[in-house]
């Protein structure tokens, strides 16, 4: 553990240099996240006839603006990275390092997030200047919990992606399986629509599934839709899923590495 902390400053420097080297590519990645705007157009037209489940046009705009921000803050691409490393054998030299390759990748993604914020900040600033009614101060407690919740949401996406990537130790089609997961995630995490618009019977199920913890919980905290008191049990669920998936990932990683060695890489 201590040598990880000693290595951190260097890892940060290396990660940042990497991001800056491919800055145009990174900027395009930020721009690809247009889905919240497209969903906003749809729900804005719906809310024009009156509020839906408590969401008027202003609330819809605030919800999807928060989605745009949270989506950038929780971006991970370990699935593609690790899948590529496993299939091409590029993982082998990384295993010789005294640091777990997953930790290394995790740090580089956290670093890239800072760069994303640099691109995102003026966009959000311009948006709030154009439509100041979109900002609703969430209160200090909720704002603090937002940071906890967004960190957990990032960890959840990272772990899920890492797990799907590790399937490549055994299967050829791990990317396709992730496509199925991603479709379900879009619908159930609050990415396509606030989960409040689902039929009432779905709500308890949605709260216990891991999807809301990956997006909707931090989004609702940031947009002021969720009070600090109501958020606590949901952050508890996020934490529970994070610990479960972390344990599962650690177990799968060990089993997968044994399997990886087995075909002589």
């Amino acid at each position, binding site marked *: 553990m201590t040598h990880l902390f000693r290595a951190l400053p260097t890892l940060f420097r290396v990660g940042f240099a990497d991001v800056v080297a491919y800055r145009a590519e990174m900027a*395009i990645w930020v721009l690809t996240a*247009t889905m919240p705007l497209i969903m906003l157009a749809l729900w804005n037209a719906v809310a024009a006839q009156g509020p839906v489940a408590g969401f008027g046009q202003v609330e819809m705009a605030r919800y999807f603006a928060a989605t745009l921000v949270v989506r950038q803050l929780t971006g991970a691409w370990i699935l593609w990275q690790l899948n590529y490393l496993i299939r091409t054998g590029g993982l082998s030299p990384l295993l010789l390092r005294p640091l777990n390759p997953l930790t290394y990748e995790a740090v580089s993604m956290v670093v890239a997030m800072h760069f994303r914020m640099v691109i995102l900040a003026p966009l959000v600033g311009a948006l709030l200047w154009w439509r100041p009614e979109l900002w609703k101060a969430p209160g200090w407690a909720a704002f603090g919990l937002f940071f906890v919740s967004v960190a957990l949401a990032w960890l959840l996406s990272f772990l899920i992606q890492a797990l799907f990537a590790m399937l490549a130790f055994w299967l*050829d089609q791990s990317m*396709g399986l992730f496509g199925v997961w991603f*479709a379900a995630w879009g619908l159930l995490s609050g990415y396509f629509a606030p989960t409040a618009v689902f039929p009432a019977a779905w709500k308890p199920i949605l709260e216990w599934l891991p999807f809301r913890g990956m997006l909707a919980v931090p989004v609702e905290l940031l947009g002021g839709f969720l009070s600090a008191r109501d958020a606590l049990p949901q952050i508890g669920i996020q934490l529970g899923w994070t610990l479960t998936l972390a344990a599962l990932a650690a177990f799968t990683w060990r089993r997968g590495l044994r399997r990886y060695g087995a075909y002589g890489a």
Partner: protein
Amino acid sequence: MVPDCGRILRVPAALLRISLATAMQYRSDFIFEGLTGVVRTGATVAALLLVYLHRQEVAGWTLPEALLVMAFFLVMSSVVQAFFEPNLGAVVEQIRQGTLDLLLMKPADAQLLVSASRMAPARLWDALAGIGLGAWCLWHLPTRPGADDVLVALALFACGMVAMYGLWILAICTSFKFVRVDNLRFLLMSVSDAGRWPLAIFSGWVRVLLVIVVPVGVVTSFPAMALRGAWTVHLVLAAAGAALLFAVGSRLAWKRSLASYTSASS
């Protein structure tokens, strides 16, 4: 020089045969792709169903009509992912490795070769889902479209696809200049997602952008409007204009970028 029409068709047909043969080597992948396609389609349709839980109609479009737009979107995006998108990736790779030179030496039009060099036929499952969805919608439309409406819809869809093809060729042209634009295709795909909904839900200037800048509106909304019997001469002219603009524009851009291309090896 007058282009030989038979050859213009024969070359892509041969390339398509090669892609199909490659795809058939990975049969389980091919089937698997179909299954995941069903789930993906289900999720996007479900997102629209959520809207219609709360409303009878949105911006004047009922559920079967809005699903009709979605059906055209599914066919369009599946054709794009099967035929246009893999080629952008292939060109970027070839420019970086210098192997594009080999392609340019072949005795056929380079744009033809580039736009058919790599295909992913497994992606066509989504088109089947789209056609199925479209058939269901036609059955449930309030008024059954006439034969002329169907013909106009097909013509509008064709115009839209030509315009989309031009857009992807333009994207390929940028790779001559900037090389590392692999992710430009993700940008194009994600902007095209706006074609899922009827144009009517967007505000005025976004609507214009979705016709003349990223012409997804022409492929998805225009044909659906025709099937509702709401097509006008203006609509047809706008679609034909977009098709012409993108076809001519992309051809000119292609010629220019090829003229300024100085291979990775020289």
